[in-house]
């Protein structure tokens, strides 16, 4: 039991996390609580520690001190990326990363929750259930047409969507999404916001984004990071009115 009796148990509980690189404090006593089913937007200037925070949650970086707990009682600081992913935390990178020399179908197939052990995977054959799930995801990400194309040949936006589709295929309880609309057109941005809202109906989501229009479109609680710790938290308009936030971030 990592956290006393907060109820309902938060899906993600980050408390007092500090990470230093070469004396530079990337995260400084950061604390953050995400409730089950919540969507949270995280904003902050460059170097505020957003990516490092994601790294800590997903097990890529170990915190120097602090608690990171999933579902209330699972200590994430002791686990590696694969274990955390299997727990149900999905992560989407800033730059879309899909498997470029696999087809869209294979990308989704690899992402499907389930088999992860090498030996089982070696003998795996696609089941009807898997096929069905892939078809669903293709529809969701509007990639049905492109199912047999190499992921590397997709457009930038399509890749972003494919990656989101792959995340969905993992059936995560919590989704970490890093700048999903960077480099997208306005229309695509809007569609992506809709997609995320849709996803949020069944998953908890943490979105890191710069694009204020997009954050506004999401209409959720916002956390502002600055120099590795939380500067302000609350609804977007409230945060935007915060003087310190204006000073360090929005005002410029």
């Amino acid at each position, binding site marked *: 039991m990592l956290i006393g009796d907060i109820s309902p148990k938060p899906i993600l509980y980050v408390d007092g996390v500090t990470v230093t*690189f*070469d004396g*530079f404090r990337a995260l400084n006593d950061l604390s953050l609580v995400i409730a089950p089913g919540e969507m949270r937007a995280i904003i902050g200037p460059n170097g505020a520690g957003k*990516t*490092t925070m994601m790294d800590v949650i997903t097990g890529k970086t170990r915190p120097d001190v602090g608690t990171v707990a999933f579902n209330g009682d699972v200590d994430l600081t002791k686990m590696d990326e694969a274990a955390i992913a299997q727990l149900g935390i999905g992560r989407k990178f800033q730059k879309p990363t899909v498997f470029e020399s696999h087809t869209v179908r294979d990308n989704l197939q690899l992402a499907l929750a389930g088999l992860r052990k090498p030996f089982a995977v070696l003998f795996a054959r696609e089941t009807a259930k898997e096929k069905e799930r892939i078809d669903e995801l293709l529809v969701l990400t509007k990639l049905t047409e492109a199912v047999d194309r190499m992921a590397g040949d997709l457009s930038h936006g399509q890749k972003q969507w494919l990656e989101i589709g792959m995340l969905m295929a993992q059936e995560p309880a919590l989704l970490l999404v890093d700048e999903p609309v960077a480099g997208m057109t306005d229309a695509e941005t809007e569609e992506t916001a809709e997609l995320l809202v849709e996803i949020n109906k069944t998953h908890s989501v943490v979105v890191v984004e710069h694009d204020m229009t997009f954050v506004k479109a999401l209409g959720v609680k916002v956390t502002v990071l600055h120099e590795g710790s939380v500067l302000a938290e609350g609804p977007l308009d409230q945060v935007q009115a915060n003087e310190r936030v204006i000073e360090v971030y929005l005002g410029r």
Partner: protein
Amino acid sequence: MMRSLFLRCLRPLAAPVLAAVMAAAFVLAGLMAAAPAARADAAGDALALFASKSYDDIEKGIADLAASGHPQAIDILSALGDRRLHVAGDAIVFEDAAGTWHDALTGAALDGEPAGAKAVRANNRIRRAVDAALGQLTLMSADAGKRYDAALSVFKSRDQASLPLVRSALETEQDGKVKRALQQALAALTLYGDADETAKLEAIDVIADMGNQDALATLVGVPEPTPAMAEAISSAQDAIESSLAIWSGVQSVYYGISLGSVLLLAAIGLAITFGVMGVINMAHGEMVMIGAYTTFMVQEVIRNSAPFLFDYSLAIALPLAFLVAGAVGVAIERGIIRFLYGRPLETLLATFGLSLVLQQAVRTIFGPTNREVGNPSWMSGAFDLGGLTLTYNRMWIIVFAFVVLAILMVVLRRTAFGLQMRAVTQNRRMAGSMGIRTNWVDSLTFGLGSGVAGIAGVALSQIDNVSPNLGQGYIIDSFMVVVFGGVGNLWGTLVGALTLGITNKLLEPVAGAVLGKIIVLVALVLFIQRKPRGLFPQKGRAVER
């Protein structure tokens, strides 16, 4: 002077020489008015022995000549030692250092080399006899250096016949260093002669004070020690041995630093191309080789046209090697590597191919055999520091390695080029948009790394083979050093090189050279698996490309 360190087993051979030279001593010291005719006869008989094929005869000739009081005995004997003494028909002739031929008996200059001249046979035994004879003949020389050498050679030969000579030399000797050497020689003579116990005990103290390997050797062999002497010897021996043990530890560390400095030199160029640019240059070793061959070319030209410059050959070779290897480096970068940025493994393969081509090219041009690169006089020999023997070439290479490192540090940190280089490394796009010509910076960086490898080649030519395979011997070690130290960090390269060098040298006496090296390699592989980014990793996000 190093010669003195060894040699003590001349007793069996030396006996006849001793007898003869003893006579010589008396001749020299007492019979100044001896008839010139008798001298000439004795000298003539002695010289005649040099025509013999038997080493015994020649050895006797040396003793006889030394005893004959022949005015040119020193010249003749030196000539014999250097194989400049010849037999021409019935005459014995020699060529002096200036290249003029003389008749040995009369000393008269001859015009040119006499027909049919054949060098007098000489081997190590003859040379030793010559050294011993010359030692006695030169104890009174006007040149302090020669007197010192003579004292050392007496110390080594422990030739009892020299006793009166050494005594009288000691009386007049003014030079402190020579005087000490004479005292030590006297002590050695006393110990091995028939002096009384008190004198011998004193002598033991004198020798014990030398505190080195020679002293130990002298003490160990003392004939028929009395109980008191045996005790003195054994305590002196213990003292010397324990001090030598400490020195041998120091020596291992020094050798380690020396090996480390060689590794540092070989790796430092790589630290730039690999560490700063991230380019795997498997042809790096060939850049070193090119530097070594440049040195060879420079020396070849100097030998043929300006021999007086030989001592400066390395100074001339350094900038040339830098330029030649640097130019080749720039050509490689322009011709191959720039097409492969971001594909380090492909670069590795292409440069490996290139290394084969370069090796074969050198083999075709210069031939497969080793080429001779000489040591200038200031790189030859050794000097003693406490219980250490430091060779000049290794010492200068250590100094040189550190100087190169320091210069590179300054270039990277304090110059505009260094700044641009670091800028390009850290953020190519940004650097480009700020007006830095990234292409040029790439080429020059690679050229710099290669050029540094080239000057490493100049240094390595002083201690290793200059052959087409030169580079291959260093490539794996160089990569190990850079990876071990941490990529992109010259301090890391320094620490890495020294650590590997010293570890290797500390292991060598225990495990042997081969096993030592294997242990170091395995330890290194395991270390990299513990700390994949080396001793001094670059930290932060920038690294994770």
